[in-house]
C-alpha cells in the first residue's frame, strides 16, 4: 500500500521527496537506491570530514583492522563542534523529509553515525529480536507483537566508496520487510550464521559515492567481502508510534540500542544517551522535537530513574 504520494519538484541532487513510483518501489521491495543524491563536491566534503572524525576517534586507540564488526563495531562520534556536516545529515531535508514521506507522517530522528566495517555482515533486520529485553524500563511487560508495523522505521546508508557484490555492498532480501516472509525468516535456524550469507537470494545494492540507499528497518540485509575498514554513514528514523504495540516496540528498541552502544563501546559504558547530539548545542528545533519524542518513549530512562537524574546525583 502506498501511504503518501508527493511528487518531487525535480529529480536531482536537491530533492526532498520521492516520486510516486519510488514510493511504490520502496513499499513493494523494502528498499530503494537514490542515485547521485549527493553531488561529488558534497561527497568530497563529507569524505574529508569523515577522515577527520576517524583521526579523532582513533587517536588514542588505533583502529583494529582485524577485529570483526560482529565482535565490536568501530564507530565514530559525530559532533556539532567537530564534524558539523556529518552531524547535520540526519536533519538534512533530503533525508528527513523523505523519511517523513516513507513513514507516513511524524517521525523520530536520531543522531547519524559512521562506522568502519570489518568482515562480512550476517543476515539480520534492524529490529529487536523477540523478547530479548524485559527489564524495569518496560514497566508492564506483556505479550505484544514484535512486528507492530512493517513501516516501523527506515535507514539511510551512504557509502563513501564504490561497493559491489564482492566488496561489501549491502545485500537485501526484497520484500522481507513484510509479513509473513519477515517472520518466516526469523524462524530459520542458522539464518544469522556467518557462512549463510551466500545461501539466501539477496539482491546486491551496488552503489557509487553520492548514492544513498534507503531500506526499511524490517528488511533483512547482509554484506559480503568488503575490505577491512570500509566506511559507511547511516541515519535512522522511526515512525512516531500510533498504537501501544508500536510504542512498546520503540521502547524496547531504544533499550536495545543503548545496550548495544555499551557492548560496542571501547570502555564498556552505556554512552549513547550522553552524546553531544542529545544536548542539542545549537538549539535545532527539529532535533529538539525528536529529543522530546525520545524522552517520551524511554530513551533517557535509566535503571531506576532517568539518566539525567542519575548524572545529577552526587
Amino acid at each position, binding site marked *: 500500500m502506498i501511504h503518501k504520494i508527493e511528487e518531487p519538484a525535480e529529480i536531482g541532487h536537491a530533492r526532498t521527496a520521492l516520486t510516486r513510483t519510488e514510493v511504490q518501489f520502496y513499499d513493494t521491495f523494502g528498499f530503494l537506491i537514490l542515485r547521485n543524491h549527493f553531488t561529488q563536491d558534497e561527497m568530497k566534503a563529507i569524505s574529508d570530514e569523515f577522515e577527520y572524525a576517524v583521526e579523532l576517534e582513533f587517536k588514542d586507540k588505533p583502529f583494529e583492522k582485524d577485529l570483526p564488526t560482529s565482535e565490536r563495531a568501530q564507530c565514530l562520534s559525530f559532533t556539532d563542534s567537530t564534524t558539523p556536516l556529518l552531524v547535520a545529515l540526519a536533519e538534512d531535508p533530503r533525508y528527513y523529509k523523505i523519511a517523513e514521506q516513507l513513514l507516513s507522517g511524524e517521525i523520530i530522528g536520531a543522531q547519524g553515525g559512521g562506522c568502519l566495517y570489518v568482515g562480512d555482515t550476517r543476515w539480520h533486520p534492524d529490529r529487536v529480536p523477540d523478547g530479548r529485553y524485559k527489564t524495569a524500563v518496560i514497566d508492564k511487560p506483556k505479550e505484544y507483537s514484535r512486528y507492530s508495523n512493517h513501516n516501523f522505521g527506515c535507514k539511510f546508508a551512504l557509502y563513501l566508496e564504490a561497493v559491489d557484490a564482492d566488496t561489501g555492498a549491502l545485500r537485501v532480501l*526484497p520484500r522481507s520487510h513484510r509479513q509473513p*516472509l519477515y517472520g518466516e525468516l526469523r524462524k530459520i535456524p542458522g539464518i544469522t550464521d556467518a557462512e549463510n550469507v551466500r*545461501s539466501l537470494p539477496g539482491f546486491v545494492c551496488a552503489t557509487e559515492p553520492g548514492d544513498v540507499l534507503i531500506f526499511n528497518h524490517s528488511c533483512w540485509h547482509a554484506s559480503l567481502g568488503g575490505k577491512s575498514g570500509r566506511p559507511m554513514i547511516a541515519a535512522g528514523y522511526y515512525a512516531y508510534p500510533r498504537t501501544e504495540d508500536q510504542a512498546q516496540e520503540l521502547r524496547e528498541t531504544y533499550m536495545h540500542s543503548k545496550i548495544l552502544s555499551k557492548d560496542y563501546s571501547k570502555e564498556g559504558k552505556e554512552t549513547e544517551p550522553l552524546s553531544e547530539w542529545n544536548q542539542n548545542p545549537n538549539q535545532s528545533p527539529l532535533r529538539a522535537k525528536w529529543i522530546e519524542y525520545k524522552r517520551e518513549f524511554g530513551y533517557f530512562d535509566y535503571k531506576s530513574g532517568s539518566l539525567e537524574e542519575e548524572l545529577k546525583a552526587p
Partner: protein
Amino acid sequence: MIQSVIFPKPNTGPRLSLNSDELQFFDMFGFIVLKQFFTENEVEKINEELEKAKAITFADLPFDPTIPSSDRLQTIQLSHSYSPFIFTLSEDERVYGIAKQLFGEELIGHQCHASSFVGDTRWHPDHPPINPYPDHRYGIKFGFYADTLTADTGALRIIPRSHRQPYYGDLKKMPGISNPENIEAFPGFACESNPGDVVLFNLNCWHASRGGKAGRTMLEIVYYAYPKSTDHIEQMRGQVKWSKQLINTRTDDKSAKPDYRREWFLNKENSPLRASWIERQRKLGIAD
C-alpha cells in the same frame, strides 16, 4: 508452510526428490537452482541431440539471430527418432519425481520444449495477464541451458518470493514492469548456471533475462497440479488458450512448424505415464 529448516547446501548428483531444506527454500522463495542435476555424460547426450535437432529444424529455414524471441519463437523440433533422451525427459523419474513430490501423483505433465532464444526477456510470470492469481502451487517449470550463463549473459533472473500473494499482485501493479528497458530496474536474483544445472521455479514467479547471446538454447519442462475446483479448471483452460495465442502471435510464415506435440501425443512408445497425462488433459479439455 514448512517449518523445519536449515539451508540447502549444494546437493549434487542423482536424486528423485528435493530434501527438506530444498523444499523449504523452494516454498519460501519460489525457485531453486539444482546444481549438477544432470551428469556430464547426460549433458553430452543432450548437446548431441540438440545439435541434431537444430540441424533438422533449421535445415530449410536457417536460424535467424536478428529476430527477437518476443517477435518470433525459433522453436527446436524434437523427436523420439533423433532426440530420444530429451523427448522423454519429462518422464524421467528424477524430473517427474520432484513434480510428484510437489503436486502428488495426479499431476499433468507435458513434453520437453527447446528453443533458441534471441534478445532479452521482460519481467513476467508464466500466466495469462488477464487470469486471476492462481493458487501458489499451480505449476512448475524445470529450465536448463546448453551454455554457462551469468547475470549479464542471459541467466534466468527471478524475483524471489514473487510466486505468493499479495506480492505477485503488487508486482503486476508496478508501472512499466514489463517494459524491456526495465529488466535491470527490478531486484531480480540471477540464477547463474552451468550445463547440467537445473533451475526449478514456480510458474507464478516473476522472471526475466538479460544479455544472452543470440541462439542460446533453453530447455523447459512444465508440470501442473491437477485442478480440483471449477475455477482452477477454468484457469488451466485459459492458460492453454493463452499459450496457443502466444505461439500463434510469435509464429509467421517463416517460422519452423514443429509437430513434435503431435508425436508426443501419439505416444508411439506406449509410455503409461505419458498416457495418463494425456488422458487427464483430454478429460479437462486442454489436450493440445
